[in-house]
């Protein structure tokens, strides 16, 4: 667990998560009333939970990107990006979610 590409994973994860929920890119969907998972939107079986699918999308895409980045490049990456990018993601999320309070 000393791989510097963990930095890449975490930096990219939040960005992909925001993109996934904004553009509805859930890897899968869960319909709790029917207790069923579906790859695609399925009407007529109740409300849907996309959150699991957004996390799965982000985890898989971030892992793929982190794995593709050369280890030396990840080592040279300025450590500050590890908190600046997620903070920007959180601020963007809070701004977007203002819609619930207006």
């Amino acid at each position, binding site marked *: *667990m*000393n791989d*510097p590409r*963990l*930095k890449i*994973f*975490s*930096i990219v*994860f*939040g960005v992909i*998560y925001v993109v996934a*929920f904004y553009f509805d890119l859930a890897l899968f969907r*869960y319909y*709790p*009333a029917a*207790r069923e998972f579906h790859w695609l939107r399925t009407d007529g079986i*109740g*409300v849907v*939970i996309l*959150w*699991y699918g*957004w*996390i799965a999308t*982000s*985890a898989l895409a*971030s892992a793929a990107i982190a794995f593709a980045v050369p280890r030396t490049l990840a080592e040279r990456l300025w*450590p*500050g990006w*590890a*908190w600046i990018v*997620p*903070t920007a*993601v*959180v601020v963007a*999320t*809070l701004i977007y*979610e203002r*819609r*619930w*309070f207006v």
Partner: protein
Amino acid sequence: MIVVLLIVHGLLAVALLGAITHQALSVLGAPSAKGRWTFVDRFRSVNGAAYATPIVVLFAVTALGGALLYPQYRIDVRPALEDMQNSAANGVFEIKEHLVAIGLGLLPVYWFFWRQPLAADTAAPRRYLTWLLAFFVWWGFVVGHVLNNIRGLQP
């Protein structure tokens, strides 16, 4: 069963809240040497690195508990909030789920920067990542409790 899971989820959240708050205050800097130590000084004079792995485990397990509870919330609670036209309550929960997801993604780099021996040049990201996670945990804790008790809290 769902009540047992909700209580366990809440208890894990209490442990996580305590651990992350200790660690978040520990990275503020060394307590003042002059005068006698206050409660806050003692609270933050912990070995922050010792909390990192328990925090990673507690965050992941608590998030998993929340994920298991989520279907019940989606079926029973959220429609009730919508019937009450309480969009703010739904909004704070939406933010909670986003923060928990982003927090799960941050755990690898958080753990990476807290591994021993602590590198001096990563003190700043270690501090800010800890504060970010602390914000996520506090938000999730307060929102979870308010929504759990919302029928009693509303006039």
